[in-house]
């Protein structure tokens, strides 16, 4: 979380103007819930581990992936998709252990682990026999 804060401050001091404007797209996600937490898988082809910014604030998870422009000034023979940044936010209802959030990026797929806080985990209640 500290790194995210620092980066936000740096960004605030020196707003970086981009030379080209690209569209921003909504990446597709799978979300799985397990007893110990939530796992999110997102398709973000073209995004490297260093180009991703994930923030978790007030129960809202925000994901932003930067994609460098490719194929500028070329004439397309087929064009079935556009290239641009990715952005998506999710409202997370569960109580999450913020300190233990972790994420990895592999082959253009982002995986985010959101572990539930100790009190939100399901607990099996033992019934004592008399």
């Amino acid at each position: 979380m500290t790194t995210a804060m620092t980066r936000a401050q740096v960004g605030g001091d020196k707003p970086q103007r981009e030379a080209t404007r690209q569209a921003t797209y909504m990446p597709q996600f799978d979300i799985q819930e397990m007893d110990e937490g939530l796992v999110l898988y997102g398709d973000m082809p073209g995004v490297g581990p260093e180009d991703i910014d994930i923030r978790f604030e007030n129960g809202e998870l925000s994901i932003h992936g930067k994609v460098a422009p490719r194929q500028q000034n070329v004439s397309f023979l087929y064009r079935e998709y556009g290239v641009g940044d990715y952005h998506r936010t999710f409202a997370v209802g569960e109580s999450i252990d913020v300190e233990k959030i972790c994420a990895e990026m592999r082959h253009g797929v982002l995986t985010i682990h959101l572990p539930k806080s100790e009190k939100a985990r399901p607990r099996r209640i033992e019934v004592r026999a008399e």
Partner: protein
Amino acid sequence: MASMRWEPLAEVNRLRNEMDRVFGRYGDRRSSPLAAPAYPPMNLWEDDDNLFLEAELPGVGPEDLEIYVTGGNQLSLKGQRKRPETPQGTWHRQEREEGSYSRMLELPCRVDSEHVSAEFRHGVLTLTLPKSPEVKPRRITVKAE
């Protein structure tokens, strides 16, 4: 004036582009029940010497992908995408495509299949397909007298 000509189709296209921008990067390609979604989506462009093909295949490793060029201008791409197998848990969302896919494409010109190169980076596949010598544009020099 040619530039002032009313082109109704261009208007429609512009509207469609606008809708694509609003509704997503694939436009109506996926949402329309009539248009079968082709997977993976591809972009194709060229320069004088090469054709370039790019396909988005997030989550596919180089080992899960087969690329063939046959007959000089037929390109086929095969592979599969798997969802991680986890014994427990419930899925809240399943938006990502999974399963095996295969796509065949007729290239607009013949290519030198011996020298096709492929690069795979962050889930984006880029193929460089050199054009056959006979289809490359040739500059004709005009001799001065």
